[in-house]
């Protein structure tokens, strides 16, 4: 497969959950594209639907979820070398597990202690997928497992194979999880908050490792995270999600140096960088909406100090800023009043643009 072909194409995905309290409309029309070899980040707060979107793509949705509409098109190369495109939402659970999970789409979860089996040595856990998905025998799988452990930077791989998860440190465990994900040569790696449970020093190492492996194996990677620092380090494209919708999407530099949506402004300014010395941090007032009640108009309007009257009535469509950069806010409508981002953020973006030598 060539670099640049679209491998994952999510169109108009819409998902709701049945609960005792009523139906929760968690995903409200998500579009996302991922090309071979690229890294896409999905950023948002808890409850924004970023994990649910990816769970839909891996067939891991909970039993009370209903997919109301949309398709998730996945393109891969089959054994004969033909390009095949399937809608992952139409596959049966069995088909998904047998042919896609692990083999084509692998996932790295947040907490390595809960995603590893405490009763199995790591060798068995790494080999499990290979024995399942390929026709390798045990010896071959064992050799490949050692190779993988070396790849993810575990020294003394031979000896470590017999270890149980509790004998490893947090960073080592996450390395093992990555090795398991890579075991059956996937094309797409989904990392769901891969470093949230880890320390900063180890976080940096794990991110550098994933980047390295991605370059070596030509993987496509999707990051789900709320940490904009992580995004800045790894991503090519960024999608900002809020209340089940993508509200701004663009190249990483466009989002970080020229954000247009007030929510993105809020996210960027809420995270102090090392030069921040303002007396107060800019914070987004209020808390995310409860999707039990369908928000009328723009879901962000109640927390948005820039909200216009129309925001309370009609949800904004995507406005085009450049070929790659879109934002869903009425502020970009030609008739909207001229607005400026908060002064602190403006000064900060100015500074980081200068430091980076970026002229957008």
């Amino acid at each position, binding site marked *: 497969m060539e670099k640049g072909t679209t491998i994952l194409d999510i169109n108009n995905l819409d998902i709701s959950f049945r609960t005792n309290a009523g139906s929760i409309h968690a995903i409200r029309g998500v579009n996302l594209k991922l090309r071979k070899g690229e890294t896409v980040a999905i950023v948002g*707060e*808890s409850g924004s639907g970023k994990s649910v979107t990816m769970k839909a793509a891996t067939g891991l949705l909970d039993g009370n979820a209903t997919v109301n509409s949309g398709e998730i098109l996945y393109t891969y190369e089959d054994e004969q070398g033909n390009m095949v495109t399937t809608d992952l939402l139409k596959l049966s659970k069995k088909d998904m597990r047998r042919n896609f999970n692990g083999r084509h789409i692998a996932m790295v979860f947040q907490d390595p202690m809960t995603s590893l089996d405490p009763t199995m040595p790591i060798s068995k856990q790494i080999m499990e997928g290979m024995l399942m998905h390929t026709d390798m025998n045990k010896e071959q799988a064992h050799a490949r497992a050692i190779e993988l452990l070396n790849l993810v930077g575990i020294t003394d791989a031979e000896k470590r194979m017999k270890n149980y998860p509790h004998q490893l440190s*947090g960073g080592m465990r996450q390395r093992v999880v990555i090795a398991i994900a890579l075991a059956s040569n996937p094309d797409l790696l989904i990392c769901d908050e891969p470093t949230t449970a880890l*320390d*900063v*020093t*180890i*976080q*940096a*190492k794990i991110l*550098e490792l994933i980047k390295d492996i991605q370059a070596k194996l030509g993987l496509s990677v999707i990051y789900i995270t*709320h*940490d*904009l*620092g*992580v*995004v*800045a*380090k790894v*991503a090519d494209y960024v999608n900002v999600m809020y209340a089940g919708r993508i509200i701004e999407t663009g190249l*990483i*530099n466009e989002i*970080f140096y020229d954000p247009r949506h007030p929510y993105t402004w*809020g*996210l*960027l*300014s*809420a*995270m*102090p*960088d*090392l030069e*921040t*010395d303002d*007396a*107060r*941090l*800019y*914070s*987004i*007032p209020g*808390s*995310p909406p409860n999707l039990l009640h369908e928000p009328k108009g723009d879901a962000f309007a109640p927390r948005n100090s820039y909200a216009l009257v129309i925001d309370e009535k009609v949800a904004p469509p995507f406005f085009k800023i450049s070929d790659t950069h879109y934002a869903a806010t009425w502020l970009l409508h030609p008739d909207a009043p001229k607005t400026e981002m908060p002064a602190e953020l403006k000064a900060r973006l100015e500074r*980081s643009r200068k*430091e*980076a*030598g*970026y002229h957008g």
Partner: protein
Amino acid sequence: MDKREPLLVVDKLVQHFPVSRNYTVKAVNGVSFNIYPGETYGLVGESGSGKTTIGRSIIRLYDPTSGTITFDGDVISGGMDNNTRNKLRRDMQMIFQDPMASLNPRKKVESIIGEGLDIHHRFSSEAERNEMISAMLKKVGLSSEHAARYPHQFSGGQRQRVGIARALIMNPKLIIADECISALDVSIQAQVVNLMKDIQEDTGCAYLFIAHDLSMVKYISDRIGVLHLGYMVETGTTEEIFNNPIHPYTKSLLSAIPQPNPVLEKQRTSITYDYKSSGIDYASGTEHLVDGSHMVLATDDEFAAWTK
């Protein structure tokens, strides 16, 4: 040096946990620092470095193995008389990491916040108690109707506000904030940090801010202590630590902070620091003064090499 009288003096605090006859977890090994009234002292370090243990030893959830802790002129590290104990329980409060786990789910917010008042008899009538509770709720940005609710009826950010209200109602001089924002969303973190700063301006309380998020620690703290494996490897004012880190561990920690600046961030690689292979022995190091209040734990040779 600072001429003010320190509020809290921690001197060579050691906290060991004997697990079995031949194995002891040495969580904290001789850590010393001061906190002055009205300032924020940030403790940073990776998990297992002992930062939470120090907080819990100071508020006497643990009995320190050795070392002395002096709080507001009284020694609180050994046995305390009733007066001192009451004072400690009143003037030092703690905000915990997980607001769901630290609030009793079966109590209403009113009882959670009012519990300290009840124990220390800080009110003369029921009406005064209710008045104090609703004033406190307003101060942390909740309304007085919230008093009749249970913790599960709040969002994460609101729950942490309840935790802050519970700590504040005793008018403490020192608040130990143990990772109090790590469990919250980014946008909510900023709200809580702003609230903590406002309260400090209002009441003049001091914070011991324990966290692993360095950019937030830098933002909120006046002085910082860097912990590693139970040793305080470096301490000083925020500027001293961030502008002139001396210890290799501090350097690696600072190099690992992700920055929201993609062009720079993509070029940067973090500095690796491995204690075992670094040849540094914390136990043989002594405190060396760099300048001002900036201290580094090192042997003489190491200090000379690092400051070259």
